[in-house]
């Protein structure tokens, strides 16, 4: 039951955007307290990150490049090279975190893995905040 609560909190924190992301991450951080992450938790985190962040990032990247002074809109969907680069930078940190959590689970350090996943959830919130600021939240 506890596992389900953590995994649900994680997916919600990954799937939601805007201010609710912060609330969801806080709930996730609370759920992590004293928790031991399993292989299933790491897999669920990776899969939901793939669906809600990595895939939209790929969609965004294939849009035509915004011209100087142009910003993303429904009328003129385009990708901002600076935003894309920053977003990918955050993604690198998230992947490193997930990889670290994976190694910890493999080595039986499930408590450590839960802590790392809390850090990952915060990083994802940071990335989503970046996207919100850039006005491209619609890609989520």
């Amino acid at each position: 039951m506890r596992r389900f609560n953590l995994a649900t909190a994680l997916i919600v924190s990954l799937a939601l955007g805007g201010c609710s992301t912060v609330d969801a991450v806080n709930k996730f951080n609370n759920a992590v307290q004293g928790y031991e992450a399993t292989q299933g938790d790491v897999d669920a985190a990776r899969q939901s990150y793939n669906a809600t962040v990595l895939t939209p990032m790929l969609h965004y990247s294939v849009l035509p490049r915004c011209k100087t002074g142009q910003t993303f809109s429904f009328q003129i969907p385009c990708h901002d090279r600076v935003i894309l680069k920053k977003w990918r930078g955050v993604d690198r940190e998230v992947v490193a975190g997930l990889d670290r959590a994976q190694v910890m689970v493999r080595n039986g350090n499930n408590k450590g893995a839960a802590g790392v996943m809390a850090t990952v959830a915060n990083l994802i919130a940071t990335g989503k905040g970046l996207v919100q600021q850039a006005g491209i939240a619609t890609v989520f």
Partner: protein
Amino acid sequence: MDPALIANIELAISLASKAISLGIDVAPKLKRAYDIATGRLVLTDADREAMLAEEAQMRARIDARIAEDDAATD
């Protein structure tokens, strides 16, 4: 018109617009994440490898795009 019907139509429209903005490939991935989280699906090492390979492929495409951006002069 029945208010409940209107609400249903509004919900359907908002879900459809969300699906369009996220892309059609997202829905099965979210379902899979849900299945893993609830323990209905347990990944094998091969499944995990396949997931990592797919991610690597996606990141390679994004990185190629970033490299294009860096090389562009517009």
